[in-house]
């Protein structure tokens, strides 16, 4: 009980004596958390949007000739040998023609003078959901192009590739901002604690001479780091939430965010970001204590 009183008293004294630096550190931690969480939020939303679009991904192999029923089983096996797929549909020339006619609806007259066999036969492949990365889609597509009778493979390459490059770029930005978060929290908190140690050098030396225990001297400094992490990350996340709410209120609509179904982090992810920030700030505090405080 008395231990807690004196530890909290010491912590309050530390914070009071270096409040200017403490505020700067708090803002730096908040800003770092905000930057990281902002890009991470965009990344997760883009990924989930990509996953939703990926559900509709299909690869179409246009063939030279119709596939006879005996060949169908063989082709299915070769496709599944590369990767398990959800569904394979063989479409004959006639089925392709009928489908086109159906799609044209009232304009089907344009097909009146056309030969029903002018469209090539094809195979529609619906991959499983684990086939998500651009590289894996590209390599699957290349494999399909080697199948006997394959003329061309199509899967909306341009769109998928652009989306893939964009998510890769976003992943790099998230990683960089995570690096910024780590550096800023650990170094800034470490620097602040070091400043506290220098500011209170005489007092700490005196406490040592009076027989203060390591816990008496070190615990308030650890609490300082903990508080920097807790308050800094809470402020950062609160700022992000307000920004998110503002953007959603002013820009959401059927054409923009509505299409992405933009959502905020679930509570577990928010908690994880807070916890990691607290851990990093405490680590920064510990680094300074270990390096500069000899008890």
């Amino acid at each position, binding site marked *: 009980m008395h*231990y807690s009183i004196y530890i909290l008293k010491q912590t309050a004294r530390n914070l009071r004596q270096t409040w200017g630096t403490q505020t700067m550190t708090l803002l730096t931690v908040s800003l770092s958390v905000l930057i990281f969480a902002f890009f991470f939020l965009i990344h997760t939303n883009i990924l989930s949007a990509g996953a939703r679009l990926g559900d509709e991904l299909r690869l179409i192999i246009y063939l030279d000739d119709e596939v006879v029923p005996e060949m169908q089983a063989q082709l299915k096996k070769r496709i599944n040998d590369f990767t398990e797929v959800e569904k394979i549909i063989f479409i004959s020339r006639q089925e392709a023609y009928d489908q086109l006619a159906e799609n044209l609806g009232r304009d089907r007259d344009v097909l009146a003078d056309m030969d029903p066999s002018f469209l090539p036969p094809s195979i529609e492949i619906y991959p499983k959901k684990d086939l998500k990365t651009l590289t894996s889609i590209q390599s699957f597509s290349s494999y399909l192009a080697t199948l006997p009778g394959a003329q061309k493979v199509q899967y909306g390459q341009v769109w998928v590739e652009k989306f893939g490059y964009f998510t890769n770029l976003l992943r790099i930005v998230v990683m960089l901002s995570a690096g910024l978060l780590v550096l800023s929290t650990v170094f800034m908190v470490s620097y602040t604690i070091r400043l506290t140690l220098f500011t209170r050098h*005489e007092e700490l030396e005196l406490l040592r001479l*009076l027989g203060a225990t390591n816990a008496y001297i070190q615990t308030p400094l650890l609490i300082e780091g903990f508080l920097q992490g807790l308050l800094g990350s809470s402020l950062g996340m609160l700022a992000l939430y307000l920004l998110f709410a503002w953007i959603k209120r002013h820009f959401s609509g059927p054409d923009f965010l509505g299409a992405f179904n933009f959502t905020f982090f679930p509570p577990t992810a928010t908690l994880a970001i807070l916890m990691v920030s607290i851990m990093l700030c405490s680590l920064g505090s510990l680094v300074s204590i270990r390096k500069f405080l000899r008890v």
Partner: protein
Amino acid sequence: MTLNSQTMVELVKVTKIYPPDIMALVDVSLVVKKGEMLFLTGVSGAGKSTLLKLVCMLETPDKGFIEVAGHDLHRIKPAALQKLRQQIGVAYQDFKLLPNQSVFQNVAMAMEVGYQNPKAIRNRVAFLLDQLGIANKRNIAAGHLSRGEQQRVAFARAAANSPALLLADEPTGNLDPGATRMVLNLMEQLNATGTTLIIATHDESIHRNTSQRVLNLEQGHFFSAEDDDPDIHPLAREIASAATPL
């Protein structure tokens, strides 16, 4: 080497040299019994402060052996040292007060490091400040006090824990006769309740008529003949006579 349970401090052939070659203490041996009040006298630079600094481990000896309250200071573990320091009150010559903190905070600090009851701390600090005539300065920053008042605050902090051993370095150096009397009264009270005191002073007035032991240091040696002093440890005498370094 075992220490008699009645011994609070023991120094055996202790030498302390400050760079480049200032011999602060040379082969000094001494035994201070529990409950004793010992005056160390001598001119400035005689080695009085150095001896106190060695006992409270503010300095380490270059040679020799020091034991305090049964702890060999050369081998003491950090945790034990922290506990020991809580039992030793030191009134430093340069006070070592925190100028921005109040008189109360400066004195209470000594008890807070031992996680003592806040109410007990308030009562004890109030008592000490009253005894030393500075009760009205309780909330004033230590840096705003006169030298004499600061000296009394430093002494109050040293006495706060009712320590087993109190080391006072020139505790009356800046005091008028009235304040000196207050400090001496408090020292006697502490001694009466079992505290061992070692007081380094060059103020003859505070030990002139005392019945307590007075040792005179001169150029790092005890001036009085060691053989005549019954409290010099027999082992120390033996070592000294053998003239072999420890």
